[in-house]
């Protein structure tokens, strides 16, 4: 938290001190209306009253006054808020190698689960779309703020089959982006680009248009996993994925198992669809302080019953 007028904090401190002094003065004057009792020491020893309520009320009053005074200094708060006018497109690899089972139950199933984990972190109002790619790229779900529709679209993701056209997926996803707002592509792949346009160029073009590309690599290199139906190793081209992210102001993450894949997507969601924003907390401080002061007065100064 910062303050637009930090010099006014001194005034806030003085106001709080002044309040404490006035409070004490009021207490002393109110003593004149106290109920006379024969022996105060006996009464206190008999009742053994708790000091906690009085301390809580005084502390609440002081905190409320301090908040009111601090509001005068223009507090600037940082809050994690949903990205305004954000659009995210998930590019999901559906090439044949995604049927490998090194991630349980399969890379494809783990990818869908990770996508659902991503959607769970997306706040209302953010648009999400799905592009799948194998030998070519296709839009499964255009960007929409109806997250239930996006979840339903995950069920329409085709089964793994075909080559890996990473660059085509990036280009298609970039085309789906709106002209304004925060634009993010999350690319999830387990393989090497072997079809279509160069993915690094596509990422560079997307970045030029204002889109950020994050990449997630699935699988393990040197696992010995073969692309089903072939004798090719299901290796991961981490170099290219890192280059894509670097050229598009994004990040690269790898996941060797389903849990870490879900975790990676969850982290990406928090980093992409939420942002820290500063806002003027004066109203909040003033309102909060005022409510606390009023409540504390009502509770603390409510007249006790006297005979």
């Amino acid at each position, binding site marked *: 938290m910062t303050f637009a007028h930090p010099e006014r904090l001194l005034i806030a401190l003085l106001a709080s001190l002044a309040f404490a002094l006035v409070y004490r003065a009021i207490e002393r004057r*109110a003593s004149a209306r106290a109920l006379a*009792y024969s022996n105060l020491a006996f009464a206190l020893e008999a009742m053994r*009253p708790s000091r906690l309520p009085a301390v809580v009320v005084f502390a609440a009053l002081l905190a409320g006054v301090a908040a009111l005074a601090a509001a005068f200094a223009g507090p600037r708060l940082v809050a994690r808020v949903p990205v305004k006018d954000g659009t995210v497109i998930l590019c999901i690899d559906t090439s044949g190698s995604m049927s490998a089972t090194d991630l349980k139950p399969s890379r494809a199933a783990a990818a869908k689960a990770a996508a659902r984990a991503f959607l769970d972190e997306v706040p209302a109002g953010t648009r999400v779309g799905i592009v799948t790619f194998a030998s070519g790229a296709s839009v499964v779900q255009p960007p929409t703020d109806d997250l239930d529709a996006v979840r339903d679209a995950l069920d329409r993701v085709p089964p793994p089959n075909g080559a890996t056209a990473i660059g085509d997926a990036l280009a298609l996803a970039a085309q789906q982006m709106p002209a304004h707002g925060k634009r993010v592509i999350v690319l999830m792949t387990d393989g090497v680009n072997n079809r279509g346009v160069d993915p690094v160029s596509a990422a560079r073009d997307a970045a030029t248009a204002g889109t950020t590309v994050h990449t997630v690599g699935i699988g393990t290199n040197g696992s010995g996993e073969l692309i089903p139906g072939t004798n090719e190793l299901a290796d991961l081209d981490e170099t290219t994925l890192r280059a894509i992210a670097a050229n598009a102001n994004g990040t690269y993450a790898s996941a060797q198992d389903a849990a870490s894949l879900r975790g990676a997507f969850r982290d990406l969601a928090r980093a992409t669809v939420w942002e820290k924003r500063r806002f003027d907390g004066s109203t909040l401080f003033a309102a909060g302080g005022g409510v606390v002061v009023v409540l504390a007065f009502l509770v603390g100064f409510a007249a006790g019953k006297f005979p």
Partner: protein
Amino acid sequence: MNPRLRAALVTRRRRVGTTGAGSPRPRRGDGYEFAELRSYVAGDDPRRIDWAATARAGDLQTRVMFEDHALTLAAVLDASRSMFVGRDRPVYDVASGALSTWYALASAEDHCTRVLSDRVIEDRRRRGRSAALLCAEVRDEPGAPLDDALRIASLTVPRDASLLIVSDFYELGALEPSLRRLAARCDCTALVVRDPWRDDLPLGGFVRLRDAETGATQRLFVGRRERQRFGVAVAARESAVCEAFEAIGVRAAVLAGDSERALLEAFGLA
């Protein structure tokens, strides 16, 4: 006048020089009522020699008189500031009522005094008004410390007098030396004024209490638990004070409002 109380006062008063509660026998000494004739013994007042009886008997005969059953009723009423608190009226007024009941036990021959913090009021015979009433009507200065009155009482109240002390006795520890001296000198009865909020402390929430004696104030939170503790503590204090009085030879009871009942309790008649 309550005859039972009067009789108890006469018969149960503790008398200096006697053991136990004292038997209801008259003490031989100067008085107005003839008791008997007996032979003269050295030390008899020569003015009591009955010459006619001496002539008949042939040796000196002394008239012995019954001490009439005249009592000396004295009272001390605590007028400290702690006695001027109360629910509907100050407890001082309740205590004053006890004095009226006490002096109402006086018969025409009795002597009544009222000990204040700075002087002693003797009974004055006025037409149409009883001495007891006069003594009861006198008010001490508010704020006068009880210990002053007790010290004066220990110096002025006649031996074997019947002394009533009415107070809240919050400072019983400090008063104990004076009370012991009085208990050794005369027959003492103490009435402990009941706390007006003993059974129902109607405080709730944040309240402010002021000590009636010192003026010190304290703001405190009173809830159901605090009220319960207060009631228990007040009842325990009353019992403890009465027990402490019994230990120093003073009969005691709690004055809750009905002073006659309180005196009957003190004398074990309730």
